[in-house]
């Protein structure tokens, strides 16, 4: 048997102890080891992929509550009188939606000049001239370099917050159990509306940042605290019945929830308009010349060639990234599509995936799996939200 784990490109098994020693570790590494985690190399970080069964962990998040170590994500602190003007240029979504509204969050892409996606991120409004931006770990260095370059002479200070840890608590019972476990530590969080956040005990040693956001399609929080308090918080949550979950479950949860993964579903060579992210690109304010706007407007004018859809495999088999997608009855010269992500959906008990397919694709297509062409249904994303299957 050839164990090709790199086929799922984010995860590389690291049995090699020497290599493991050189990997970056989050403040929760000891907790993971104590809880029996299987650790893998995730973009240079030693992270848990599961604690026994990633399918069990997946169901736990859909039905009860699970938690994820997301300390590897990068929090970037931006302050200064020109922060809003800077972000209006830097981001494809319009920061005006949350500027001057402390506690509001916004999802956006950061584009290059040709309209390709440098990264996707969440921006949290802290004060009128202060925001936090949370970016992916694998893209950290190029993101920071790009963000610094774009500051130019603007009055904006950028700082990476390496001193902070982040834990995502997700699932229908997540907020209740977090309140039970953490009590006054997250006082006021219960009242947060979705996609809103709260800074508690600002500046104090017991400072907490709680956001009602996540990457699973379930309700819950992402909670930020100082690195040296993260392990205690993790253990408190575990004691209250929140199940530790690895990156394996996180991937199938986000896939079911129709949420893009940077590097798989979009990258610097792909337009957000052909990656299912049109809803995050805001062209409304004609005065706002965000980076990549010109390229995207040109692309729209010429007409999009691809659309981004969900696929459900009709028979048996598993969908995987990079499998070819063909239209039924199409000639050899027709454009082909490609799976960008794919796996087995524990909730639906079927293979599901995302694909970039020719715009003329109807409600079914063929996917090439090991030289066989298998029929798949084309659906609108997401597949699952808040425990419910939305496609049939």
């Amino acid at each position, binding site marked *: *048997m*050839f*164990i*090709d*784990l*790199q*086929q*799922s490109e984010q*995860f590389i*098994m690291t*049995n*090699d*102890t020497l290599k493991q020693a050189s990997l970056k570790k989050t403040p929760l590494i000891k907790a993971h080891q104590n809880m029996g985690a*299987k650790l893998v190399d995730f973009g240079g970080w030693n992270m848990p*992929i*599961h604690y026994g*069964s*990633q*399918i069990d962990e997946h169901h736990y998040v859909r039905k009860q509550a699970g938690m994820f170590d997301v300390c590897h994500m990068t929090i970037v602190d931006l302050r200064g009188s020109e922060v809003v003007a800077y972000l209006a240029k830097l981001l494809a979504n319009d920061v005006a939606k949350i500027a001057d509204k402390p506690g509001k969050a916004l999802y956006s892409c950061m584009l290059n000049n040709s309209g390709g996606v440098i990264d996707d991120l969440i921006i949290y409004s802290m004060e009128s001239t202060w925001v936090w931006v949370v970016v992916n770990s694998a893209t950290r260095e190029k993101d920071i370099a790009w963000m610094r370059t774009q500051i130019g002479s603007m009055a904006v200070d950028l700082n990476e917050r390496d001193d902070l840890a982040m834990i995502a608590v997700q699932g229908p019972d997540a907020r209740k159990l977090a309140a039970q476990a953490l009590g006054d530590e997250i006082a006021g969080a219960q009242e947060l509306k979705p996609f809103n956040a709260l800074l508690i005990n600002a500046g104090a040693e017991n400072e907490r940042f709680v956001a009602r956001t996540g990457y699973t399609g379930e309700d819950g929080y992402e909670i930020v605290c100082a690195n040296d308090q993260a392990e205690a918080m993790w253990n408190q949550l575990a004691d209250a019945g929140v199940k530790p979950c690895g990156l*394996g479950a996180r991937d*199938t949860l986000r896939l079911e929830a129709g949420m893009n993964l940077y590097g798989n579903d979009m990258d610097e060579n792909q337009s957000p308009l052909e990656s299912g992210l049109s809803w995050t690109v805001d062209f409304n304010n004609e005065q706002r010349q965000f980076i990549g706007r010109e390229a995207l407007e040109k692309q729209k004018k010429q007409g999009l060639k691809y659309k981004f859809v969900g696929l459900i495999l009709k028979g*048996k*088999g*598993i969908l*995987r990234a990079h499998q070819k997608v063909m239209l039924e009855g199409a000639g050899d010269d027709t454009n082909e599509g490609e799976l960008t992500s794919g*796996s*087995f959906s*524990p909730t639906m008990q079927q*293979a599901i995936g995302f694909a970039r397919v020719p715009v003329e694709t109807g409600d079914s297509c063929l996917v090439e799996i*090991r030289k066989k062409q298998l029929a798949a249904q084309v659906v609108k994303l997401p597949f699952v939200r808040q425990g419910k299957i939305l496609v049939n």
Partner: protein
Amino acid sequence: MSDIPKELKYTTSHEWVRTEDDGSLTVGITEHAQGLLGDMVFVELPEVGDDFEAEQDCAVVESVKAASDIYCPIEGQVVAVNEELEDSPEQINVNAYHEGWIFRIQPVNASHIDNLMGADEYAELVESESH
């Protein structure tokens, strides 16, 4: 250290092989291999009657994480496949050496089984791959 039964033979690609009373060979993947792959969700079986060379890919197991080819340990013809795996691939996780068997071959030359590793040798391989 994962379970490596003494009475079985092993391949460098993590298949186990058991000689049955009728001289046929039952093949599956080891406890160590299923642990690396994680939750199994799909198995593509060969067909009874198919002939395979040694080390030829003849089946596929897919976990949530990844797909992996299964290689035929020695030259032979498939005489049985574990159809239960089509509906319950997780049997490989639950019991890799028994309910998780994948297929059975009639070897062209029974002495070829001597080319495979014994339990001690396989244990060393697993150990060396972990360090």
